[in-house]
Every structure is written in structure tokens, then in C-alpha cells.
């Protein structure tokens, strides 16, 4: 995973609450292999007409948001389904950071797995950022090391779990990290077999 340190990029407002993952990517695209890219599916049914053409009315398609790599949104962004495809769609489109007061929790985990920074700010800070963008603001700078977002005016602090921050900063791969703890995992299993003998499934007697 590519480390995330700082990013200065065009920010796009998505000024709604409860943007669910069905909106971010409709279920019907999820049989597509990742290698084909999910960027084209991002907010598909909100950006495209029935024949698949961009209607150019969505904030992401406005000319001044071209090349956006940052999204600013309201509460509970990414709620709903566990589909990691929602994060694939954002990342493949080019988004590297979403700023919002809160996130769906599975979404936040998926973001982390894909190097997408989910930065939490207060509701007031999100409103202020959205107002600035609405008033013509364009670029934001996100500094993960310092945990700040700056926009030409003074920087604001954002929240992120310390472990998530470290993983993003270092681009750590968690499977490799976990496999390095194989001794501890084996020790757990030995302890656990004695404590919770019933936890092992009985072979299904029906076949």
C-alpha cells in the first residue's frame, strides 16, 4: 500500500448526510473484477442518465472540481453495506481523502485497507469547509503527520484512530504484519482450546 503523508488537491463538496454505499456504487456493478476499475461506477445513478451518459449535474462533474482527490461530506458518510467496492470506486476515481464528521464503520475499515484517508472533523468544521468550497474555494492540503487540514486560512485539526494513522503513514500491509505474530496466534489457540472446547464446530452430521 502506498503511504499517505500529505496531499494538496482539489476538494469537492458532497453536502449530504447519510451518503450510503448503495449510492456510492450500486450493487449491480459488484461482479466486476477490480482489475477493470471501479471509478466509472462512482455515484453512478446520481451522475448518469439511464443510457449511462454523465448528466454533468453532480458536484464531482462540475468543471471547477475536475481532478478532485478530496471529498468533503456531512455525517455518516459510507453508511450501509459492507461493500468494499464503494472504496474501490472512490480510489479508482482518484479520491484519496474523505473529510466528514462521521463515517459508516465498515466503510472506515475498508478505506484504511485501501489507503484512503477518512478524516473526522466536527460538524461545524465540516460546515465551514463546505461553505468555503461553495464560496469558490478549491484546493485543500491534508497533512496526516500533523493531522491538519489547511485551506489558505488557518489549519484545522482532524481526528483519526492512532493505529489507522500509523498504518496509512507507513503504508503497512496488515496481513504481513499479522503473520509476523504467528507465535502469539498459536499460543492463543492452545489457551483457547482448553477454555472453550465447545467453540470448535462439530462436523455437520447431515453430510
Amino acid at each position, binding site marked *: 500500500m502506498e503511504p499517505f503523508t500529505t496531499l494538496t488537491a482539489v476538494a469537492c463538496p458532497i453536502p449530504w448526510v447519510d451518503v450510503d454505499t448503495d449510492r456510492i456504487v450500486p450493487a449491480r456493478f459488484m*461482479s466486476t473484477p477490480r482489475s477493470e476499475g471501479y471509478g466509472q461506477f462512482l455515484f453512478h445513478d446520481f451522475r448518469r442518465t439511464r443510457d449511462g451518459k454523465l448528466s454533468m449535474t453532480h458536484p464531482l462533474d462540475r468543471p471547477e472540481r475536475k481532478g478532485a482527490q478530496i471529498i468533503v461530506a456531512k455525517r455518516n458518510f459510507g453508511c450501509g453495506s459492507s461493500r468494499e467496492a464503494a472504496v474501490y470506486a472512490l480510489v479508482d476515481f482518484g479520491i484519496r481523502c474523505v473529510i466528514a464528521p462521521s463515517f459508516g464503520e465498515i466503510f472506515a475499515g475498508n478505506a484504511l485497507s485501501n489507503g484512503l484517508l477518512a478524516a473526522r472533523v466536527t460538524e461545524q468544521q465540516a460546515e465551514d469547509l463546505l461553505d468555503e468550497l461553495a464560496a469558490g474555494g478549491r484546493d485543500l492540503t491534508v497533512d496526516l503527520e500533523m493531522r491538519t487540514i489547511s485551506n489558505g486560512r488557518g489549519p484545522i485539526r482532524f481526528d483519526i484512530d492512532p493505529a489507522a494513522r500509523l498504518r496509512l503513514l507507513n503504508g503497512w500491509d496488515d*496481513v504481513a504484519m499479522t503473520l509476523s505474530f504467528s507465535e502469539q496466534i498459536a499460543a492463543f489457540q492452545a489457551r483457547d482450546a482448553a477454555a*472453550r472446547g465447545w467453540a470448535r464446530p462439530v462436523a455437520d452430521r447431515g453430510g
Partner: protein
Amino acid sequence: MLKELFLISLAFMQRTLFDKLWDSHVVLAQEHGDTLLWVDRHFVHEGSHHAFAKIAGRGLPVARPDLTFGVADHYVPTRGRTATAAIPDAIVRGMVEKLEANTKRHSVRLYGLDDPRQGIVHVVGPELGLTLPGTLIVCGDSHTATHGALGAYAFGIGASEVAHVLATQTIWQRKPRNMRIRVEGRMAPGLTAKDMILSIIARIGTDGAVGHAVEYAGEAVRGLSVEGRMTLCNMSIEAGARTGMVAPDETTIAYLRGRPCVVGGAAFEKAAEDWLALASDGDAAFDKEVVIEGAEIAPTVTWGISPEHALPITASVPSPDFAADQAKAVNVAAAINYMGLKEGQPISSIPIDRVFSGSCTNSRIEDLRAAAAVLAGRTSKVPGLVSPGSSQVKLQAEQEGLDRIFLDAGLEWGASGCSMCVGMNGDLVASGERCASTTNRNFVGRQGQGARTHLMSPAMVAAAAVVGTITDVRPLLEGRT
């Protein structure tokens, strides 16, 4: 002084059900709060293809195929069920084939299309006794909390995490906070767990439980069957919770006894003792608590595009002016527009175009019986599909003659799968159509592009079918129960 110390240590020892589940799965904890947890059961389905591709890309095996279970549900056809090779839709066939190939390659047990135990993953797990109190269960599906009904710590994960669990049988988590939702007293007759959970979500909102593990408690929850508890826990994610659970009690133990994958004999009785001891200690502290009076719960339906857009059947479509804040007001206005409704319109007059009864929320035998009790001897004014939660539920329903009731009412009786909950198998609601549905999400486009979904209980869906509009089921049940 000594007494104080004693009290402090006692307070320290008081643990919630969730604390106990968490503690018993900790492999190691890192300083910054990330904790590696052991996974007892991992369910995979067709949608897990991304994760299998990830481990294949790194040449990793499945660490514990014996604790991994495949279930074909998300894409399987519910109409005209055939062998996999004969599924007409190439995409659907490809997805089922991929699951078959991946589970075979890694020696993972698959409850596939032709297996008599196939069904929706969250119905099959408990039904087979794979879901046990005190276990940690994950699946790449956000409604995994369903299994919490038995006192398991169960939660949905994304594809990268599925790959991680496949490769290591563990998962990294930060401990969520404890929340308890108590439903005290009793619900009126004819009311169900679905009315309960929709009322809860309407009250606390779709992010009301973010960051929390929810334990459902109180007399009305205790009074639910394990099936009802599954409906309740199922929709925890719709309140933003990481997981939802009910402490194991005698109802749980009775449900588990004799299930195919549970230990038997003396070992069962010994396990039952451990399971009953998982209940929250008397003085265990919760970070957040919500109390609801069971008697105040009415038949509840959603009118909008978020599960929190739920109201009693006697209410009317709200005005954006009364929303909690500006952002919510925008959502209410968008919902009224998308749903093709008018502010102030009574909910019980809204005409529907079709019904769907199924999904892991409400497709167990009890749900089918509740729908059949309303439909018996009546006809549906609109087309609709009934999809049982598992092939075993299907068989049992047919033995009880429920299928005849649905067919005689003019509804379709399908095979088991996720079907119109998510529409991946092609069971879709047409654009602009309004569907009364027992599922869990009324998001824009969830049941198909442009589809309008109203969530409600199986009995309420059956009532809507009979009347042709959303309606209060209670008069239709008079003299029947």
C-alpha cells in the same frame, strides 16, 4: 478504606456480555489500541470473490478451512432453480461458479446451490448450529450481527478484511463502546421484532449507535423467540452499530439443543453453563443506554429513503420543516421527492405495486407463518415474491402448507437467496414501482434503479398485499390468532 478498595475491584470486575466476548478473543493488544482477535467462524459467499483474488495474488492458503464456511446466497436465482451450469444469466452463473471453485480449491465446506442446507448465510449459520453463544463470527456482509441473537460477537467486514481473515483466522479491531437498548414491558399482540427495531432506529437515528456494540435487553426482548432476536440484531447496522447481541438464556439453549453442528450430550450441558454465564454482570456499566417502552411500539413502516424514516402506521408523511436539523430536512425533502409522496399524506393510504417477503431480516419459518396467517383465504391485489431464508425453511414451509397459501393468494413462491433484498440475482423492483418489503434497507436504488421500498414486518407486507395499500395489519388479524 478496605471496603472502598473492595468496591472498586468489584466495579472493575463487572463486565458486559460484550466485554466478555471481547476478552475471550484477544490474541494480542497493541499500545495504540488495535487488538488482534481470534475468529471462530468465517462465512464467505459469492461476493467474497475479491478477497479470494487477493489471497491468490499473494499465494496464501486459507489458514483454517475448517472454520470457514461457504454459502451461495447473494447471486443465486430464486425462480426456476437449476444446477449451477444451467443458470441462464452468465454473470450470475459466473459468480456462483467462482464461489464453487474458490471453496473447492481451499477445501472449504460449501453450502452450494444443490445443497439441501443452502440458504441465506445469516439464516443457515444459526439453523445448522454453526452460530454459537460466545463465538466471534465475521462475514463480508453488513448484516452479520444477525448471529448476535444467540450471544455471539458477529460483525460485517469488507473484502480486504475477508482476505485477512482467510489468511490468518484473525482480525484487527478497536474495541467499540458498550451500549444497551432496553425494551421494557410488553409489546401489544400482533407486533413483532421488526416493529421493535424500526422504532428503535426511528428513535436513535441511523448513526445513533456508531462506535458501539449494542446489547438488546429488557422484558420485551427476552420475550422474543431466537428468530425474533435475529430480526432485531440483524438491523443493528441500520442504527450504525458495529454489532448487536442478546445475552444467551434458556430460550437460546432450547434453540441450540440438537442442532447438527453443536456438541451433544454431556458436552452440550457443560457448554450451556458457559453460555449462560456470558450475560452482563448486574452492575456492568454501559457507555450509553436507551430505554423504550414496549407498549408504545406500533406497527412501524418506513416512508422514505433511510431506515430512520420510519413511523407508526397511523402517522403521516412528515414535513421537512420538522426535521431535527437542516441536513436532515434536506434528506426528508429528497426522500419525499424520490418516493413520490406528499407531505401530510397518511402512510396507511399509500398504494403499492408489489410485495417482497424474504431476506435475512425476515425469512425464517416464523416470518412465513406470520405472513401466511394474514394471507390465508385471501388474495393479493398486487404481484409479489416470497423467498424463504433457507432450503430447509422452504421444505418446512411446504410441509406446513404455507406455500399453498402464498400461491393461492397469487404470490410467487421462490427458492432461497438474497433475492430482492439487493437484487444481485436479477430479482428487481422496476423503476418507479413501490414495494412493500420485509428487507432491511430502503436506500435509493437498493431494490433496483428507481425502485421505491417500504420496510415493514412480514405480517404488514401480507396486509399490504391483501389491501393494495400500506395498511395496519391488526384488523386483518382479528379472529385469526
